[in-house]
């Protein structure tokens, strides 16, 4: 088990709690993202996924607990911690007035990337996602899917050792989802990097994530590889979806909702 302040561990969350006034959003969360690992965080709406991710990137101050990115605390020392991560937020709300090219220039400046490297990477990623032709148009005029692609390029531009992705496949077409999945799998395979990914899409989590954590009402209810999670539930032929419903005790809720809708 890595020790506290472990500089080799992409992410360590220990006893994390987040409250909105009297409302608890996350309670005593404990998890790690290991080198070479994609960790998928599953949960229903309001389960606390986005709050957790926002604490990791330093957008939110936890009520209790600690977050460490390669040993750096994003609350106490935000700049060094933020240098080590790339973030895709839940909504692609950016500078509408800037073009993707101008936005990437701003990011390259803030991240102090060498010009040649930044240019080469931006060209390569824009081409990979098929949006070179849109790179000079203001973001306000681009589709949600294209903005999402720009966010992925922005997160990858400095090739950080930790990627924090909040619903990264939202608004993307199937071809781009496939490209992004391949790219992310290779990203952690080729170097000791880590990815923390939140998603509602079970097949993506099942296919892409090395380990999965199931968050319900702010608490981590189950954690492990898909095989480990499914092993405890022999009657889970429906894959991760069945596992998820079982862990969160949602089968009865789903049955009741469908029954109540009959005849509506």
């Amino acid at each position, binding site marked *: 088990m890595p020790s506290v302040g472990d500089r080799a561990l992409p992410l360590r969350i220990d006893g994390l709690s987040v409250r909105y006034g009297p409302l608890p959003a996350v309670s005593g969360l404990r998890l790690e993202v290991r080198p070479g690992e994609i960790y998928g965080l599953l949960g229903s709406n309001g389960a606390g996924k986005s709050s957790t991710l926002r604490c990791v990137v330093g957008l939110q101050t936890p009520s209790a607990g600690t977050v460490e990115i390669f040993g750096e605390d994003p609350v106490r020392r935000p700049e060094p911690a933020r240098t080590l991560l790339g973030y895709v937020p839940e909504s692609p709300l950016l500078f*509408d007035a800037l073009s993707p090219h101008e936005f990437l220039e701003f990011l390259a400046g803030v991240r102090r990337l060498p010009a040649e490297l930044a*240019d080469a990477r931006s060209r390569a990623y824009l081409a990979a996602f098929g949006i070179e032709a849109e790179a000079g148009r203001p973001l306000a005029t681009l589709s949600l899917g294209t903005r999402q692609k720009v966010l992925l390029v922005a997160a990858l531009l400095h090739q950080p050792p930790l990627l924090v992705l909040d619903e990264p496949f939202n608004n993307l077409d199937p071809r781009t989802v496939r490209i992004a999945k391949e790219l992310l799998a290779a990203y952690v395979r080729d170097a000791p990097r880590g990815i923390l990914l939140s998603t509602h899409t079970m097949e993506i989590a099942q296919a892409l994530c090395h380990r999965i954590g199931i968050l319900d009402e702010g608490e981590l209810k189950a954690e492990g590889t898909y095989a480990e999670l499914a092993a405890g539930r022999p009657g889970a032929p429906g894959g991760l979806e069945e596992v998820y419903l079982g862990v969160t005790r949602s089968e009865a809720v789903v049955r009741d909702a469908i029954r109540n809708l009959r005849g509506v």
Partner: protein
Amino acid sequence: MGWRAAFRLGSVAYRELSFQAIYATRQGQPLPEAAATDDLGRTAARRVRESKLLVSALLAGISAVAATALSPRVQIFLGPEVAPPLYQAAVLATALLLELSLLWTTGLQILPTFLGSRILPTLAVLPIPPADRDRVALLLFLRTFDLPALTVLLLLPLFTGIALGNAAAGLALVPGAGATVLLAFALALATGDHFVRRVQGSPTGHRATALRWGYLVLWAVPAFAIYAFVSFGPELLRALAALAATDPNGLTALLLCFPFPYALLPALAATPSAGALGLGAGATDLLLVAAAAYAGPLALVARWLLAAPGRLALAAADTDPRAPTARRLRVRPPAVAVLVKDLRIASRSPAFGYVVLLPLLEAVVLGASTFVNSPGPVTVFRLGVAAVATSALLATFFGPVFFATELMGSAYVRSLPLAPRSVVLGKTALLVAVYAASALLLVGFTAARVVAPAILLLFVLAELPALLAAGLFEMAFLFRVSVGRELGLTNLYTGARWATAAALPGLALAGGPLLLYALQPERLPGIGLMALFALGELAAVVPVARWWTRRWRR
């Protein structure tokens, strides 16, 4: 759906618009963590009310000053050579134009929020007929300006009636006040429409950027008009008097322009003798006919206005079909990257663009005005000093607007390793650059006609540390407010409270050395003292700014 139902739906939409005007969540701003969720809506409504009150107070101030200027005792100072009814008409026309400019400017300020709130696109998917949707949009737009518009409609006629001691004179100004409000709204929406269609979708590239800045000059005009009328008021009155004496037909033609025919009505109501204007009886009748004739185009404007807010809120930007040229990525140091990003945002946004352009336009107009009447070198130097001082104060006054760009996409930007120092320095650099560019323009205009142009350059340089101090103070203060409490400045209209709180100390810092210079009889010792004082201010502000940005880390 009738107007009553549209008003009810508009009230719900207005609550959302108020919320977006303050919290801008649809522009990527995170909600303040400390605030209780139930309080957010109430806080937004209160803050929007405060802003309306502040703008209305400013409009009421213009009305009060105009009413004071109507007094014969003030006329002795401002325009003794002008016939009193003509003088009154000129004062009221100026007041109407000032109020039109202020409403137009605030309209442009709120426009990005009006469009960014995406309220109308949400309504567009509901089964509401387009005509009803347009009614909701119109009511939403009008409610944003209800108090300022009422201030113009009621206070200016009321104050005029009191000042002229004649209730009929006050009532006679109501049509002019109504026309002013109508035109201000129409101009704000028409320029906004232009913004969405031609500028928002404009691609990158030097030509497109130059074109965008060219368009932005259009938006700087209303704000600049406020300044120009205040600065050149006495000259305008003298020109009117000269025209009345030499070319009565020319004067009549000038008086036919809006809003003179309406501004003449109170004077005619108070002094019904046609000859008192200094024009023939026929000319006065012509002006009365013109006032009535303007009702036709104004009715068309009102009709256009019925559907304009709805159409604008659903308009899509014109996209250039040609693929933009591929360029290499240029990497700049963080503070410069912030500055360039802000300039790029300003070039595509009327709310920010005019702040950059206003001091530059002022420099061009005042610089050009030094050629009028061939003044001597001493006068040119004095005019140059006054213009540089005005540039400094204008840049400082509008500086807080630069911070509003920080709220766009701020949820994302706050995840970047961007030191608070870089944000504050980048925005301060923009403010100082705007001052330096306009001041250098003025030096260029006057260099050939003053005895020692280097002294004017020294004056510009002596003021520079004060501008730096003012910028650092304003930006660090707004940074502290934004991180410590709530993000308080989405635009100059709804963020008026924080903008004023930052701009007043900033103005004091920028104005201190200027005042010292004005009190000194000798030029060079004055500039020396000014520089020392400015450097002292900078030395005092730097630790405060550092403390604010260190204590309130993002």
